[in-house]
């Protein structure tokens, strides 16, 4: 088996990081299994053709006892209101802790809850609950309550101009920009280590969500501007759960479309979806407006095959393809910045360009390179592919279509990376919950750090198994998406070539992610 960790090991990047607590990297045994699986799946993907377009679905309303309970939960507003109130209360506590609490990050609820629990756990939650987070998102909920001046039911819009979103903004470029800015703040500026700055960020985002609601109709912030929502949206396309009609035929015959327009008491769909005809979760915020307003009570949570939406239904768009590319590159960049050698590289660059202080210029250059290199490689590969297969499809269309298999790669690495943070760094959260402001607390002692390092929530062997499983699952989904999307190309195109070239790209990206997982990673807490 190829020892590519040795091949990819360059000067300084495998330092053990003296004085730093390190997450152990993925062992060679698991890496060998991943590589073997990737090779077999690649061959399978290239040599076989896609099956018929099917998505098996099962509405959770059909479950014996819990189905009825779930049905009541999704058709009545008070359950969601209770959850929203809970999350807004926690959010307010985060702001208060950040502004008034200790600046020691590991002792303050603002930083531990926001960055260690929420930010890492959110991505894991998307797999199990789809876009459910958006339904209780305190940024949007607080803004909505302030604008509508109601806790539930339809507001009278006196606090909103209800303008149409300008055509230039009806895309997810703003969300892409916000994603880049948030990543820069998180990794470059060090937002994750500052309770005060974390609280400020919370306030700024609430103001942004509010401004969007007072200007534009529905929820333009959720649909076009929120990078967290868009990340959840793309990942939710791979989740086995989603809000869907219980019986599609009822929706097909529906003429009133309450799910889209709302009714006298329930708001319209915040992102302008007709849920009965929608097969794509990207913009669904699981807000429950459709399930509450449907006169036939025909909307509920349902189960489906993992990844079936991305395999069959997500419609490719130019701006969304760029978002996926940014997502892919910045998730890998997260891993890169947590390698012990990253700081040395930044330091050397800083010396070369005369940067000082927080070395933000050097960091920014590194971040731009980390984004641009994969994007440029992808752009060139698609260009070459277009020439090689003599495609008559316009470049943008091919670019957007073939970016879809990258979603599961980003999601799988994101999940695998976050497991490390969650299992190792969330220890001690109970003490922070008991004392959210961290009054009279001291920084972590060497002993505490050591104990955290030595006693993760989940044994290392399980974490490694999950990480390996996720990477293989992500690659398998990517291969299936590629198979299906290639099968949808016009007849006459060399599908084997498309699949071969794209598989090579997917393999390279997967190996990069595996290499990142193999490296010992610096603990944040």
């Amino acid at each position, binding site marked *: 088996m190829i020892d590519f960790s040795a091949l990819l090991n360059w000067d300084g990047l495998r330092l053990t990081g003296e004085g730093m607590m390190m997450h152990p990297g993925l062992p060679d045994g698991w890496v060998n299994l991943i590589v073997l699986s990737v090779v077999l799946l690649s061959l399978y993907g290239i040599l076989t053709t896609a099956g018929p377009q099917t998505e098996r679905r099962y509405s959770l309303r059909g479950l014996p006892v819990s189905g009825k309970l779930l049905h009541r939960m999704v058709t009545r507003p008070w359950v969601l209101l209770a959850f929203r109130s809970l999350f807004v209360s926690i959010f307010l506590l985060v702001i208060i802790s950040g*502004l008034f609490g200790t600046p020691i990050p590991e002792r303050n609820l603002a930083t531990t809850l926001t960055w260690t629990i929420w930010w890492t756990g959110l991505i894991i939650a998307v797999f199990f609950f789809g876009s459910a987070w958006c339904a209780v998102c305190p940024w949007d909920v607080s803004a909505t309550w302030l604008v509508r001046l109601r806790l539930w039911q339809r507001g009278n819009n*006196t*606090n909103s*101009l209800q303008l149409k979103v300008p055509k230039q903004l009806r895309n997810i470029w703003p969300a892409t920009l916000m994603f880049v800015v948030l990543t820069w703040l998180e990794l470059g500026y060090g937002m994750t280590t500052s309770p005060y700055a974390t609280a400020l960020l919370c306030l700024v985002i609430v103001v942004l969500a509010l401004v969007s609601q007072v200007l534009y109709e529905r929820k333009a912030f959720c649909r076009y501007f929120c990078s967290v929502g868009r990340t959840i949206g793309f990942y939710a396309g791979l989740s086995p759960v989603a809000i869907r009609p219980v019986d599609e035929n009822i929706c097909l015959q529906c003429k009133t479309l309450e799910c889209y327009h709302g009714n006298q008491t329930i708001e319209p769909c915040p992102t302008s979806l007709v849920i009965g005809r929608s097969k794509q979760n990207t913009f669904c915020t699981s807000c429950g407006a459709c399930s509450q307003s449907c006169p036939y009570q025909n909307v509920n949570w349902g189960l489906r095959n993992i990844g079936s939406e991305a395999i069959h239904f997500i419609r490719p768009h130019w701006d969304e393809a760029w978002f996926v590319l940014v997502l892919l590159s910045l998730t890998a960049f997260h891993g890169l910045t947590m390698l012990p050698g990253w700081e040395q590289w930044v330091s050397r660059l800083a010396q070369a360009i005369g940067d000082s202080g927080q070395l933000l210029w050097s960091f920014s250059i590194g971040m731009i390179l980390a984004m641009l290199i994969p994007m440029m490689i992808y752009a060139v590969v698609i260009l070459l592919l277009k020439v090689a297969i003599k495609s008559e499809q316009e470049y943008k269309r091919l670019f957007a279509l073939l970016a879809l298999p990258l979603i599961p790669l980003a999601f799988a690495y994101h999940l695998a990376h976050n497991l490390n943070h969650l299992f190792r760094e969330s220890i001690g959260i109970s003490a922070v919950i008991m004392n959210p402001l961290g009054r009279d607390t*001291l*920084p972590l002692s060497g002993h505490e*750090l050591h104990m955290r390092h030595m006693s993760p929530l989940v044994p290392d062997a399980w974490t490694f198994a999950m990480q390996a499983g996720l990477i293989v699952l992500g690659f398998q989904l990517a291969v299936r998406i590629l198979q299906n999307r290639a099968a949808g190309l016009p007849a006459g195109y060399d599908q084997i070539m498309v699949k071969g070239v794209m598989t090579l790209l997917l393999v390279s990206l997967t190996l990069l992610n595996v290499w990142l997982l193999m490296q010992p990673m610096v603990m944040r*807490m």
Partner: protein
Amino acid sequence: MKLLTLVFFCLLPVSSMAHHVLGRPSYSLGEDSNTPPSMQVETQIGEYYVTYMAFPAFPKPNEPGRLNLYAKRIDNGKSFPGQVTFKVLDDNWFSSKEELLGTQAPDDSVFRQGFVFSKEGDYIIRAEFQDKEPYIIDFPLRIGEPSAIGPLGLTVGLIVVILISVNLTQRRRMQRLQAGRHHAENQHNSP
């Protein structure tokens, strides 16, 4: 002659975790954990790695504290042998008040400077030394509790202003629309 200057523009109470990230303050306990924690910043400027430590990490007014500064060359690890001058500035865009804290020679390669501040607030500690070229390094130091009402009050105020402005605008729009409708109806009904 080139003047090397390092300024921490971001004077929020930024802190950091178990390991030191260049340029970000971190909090740590000493070996003797009975002592209060200290705040430490490691960074680089020109030819030097500079480590700055403030003790205690969260000084209060009229409470004595000390600053330790250590500078070593990046190329050969040798400590800076000369003198370092410490100054203090108000961290305020509208104030350029500067006060001399003292000039220190190295004590076991560390430049130690004591301080006592009488007022709460955000300050900048400026360390200056001269090698082949002059070096100026600024570090943030907060005395007392940070002002938390500021951002909260600003946000609440901003939200109230936005909501009132939009509400008024929207009411005027509705009135104009209604007036337009009445006008159209009147025209339609008139003989």
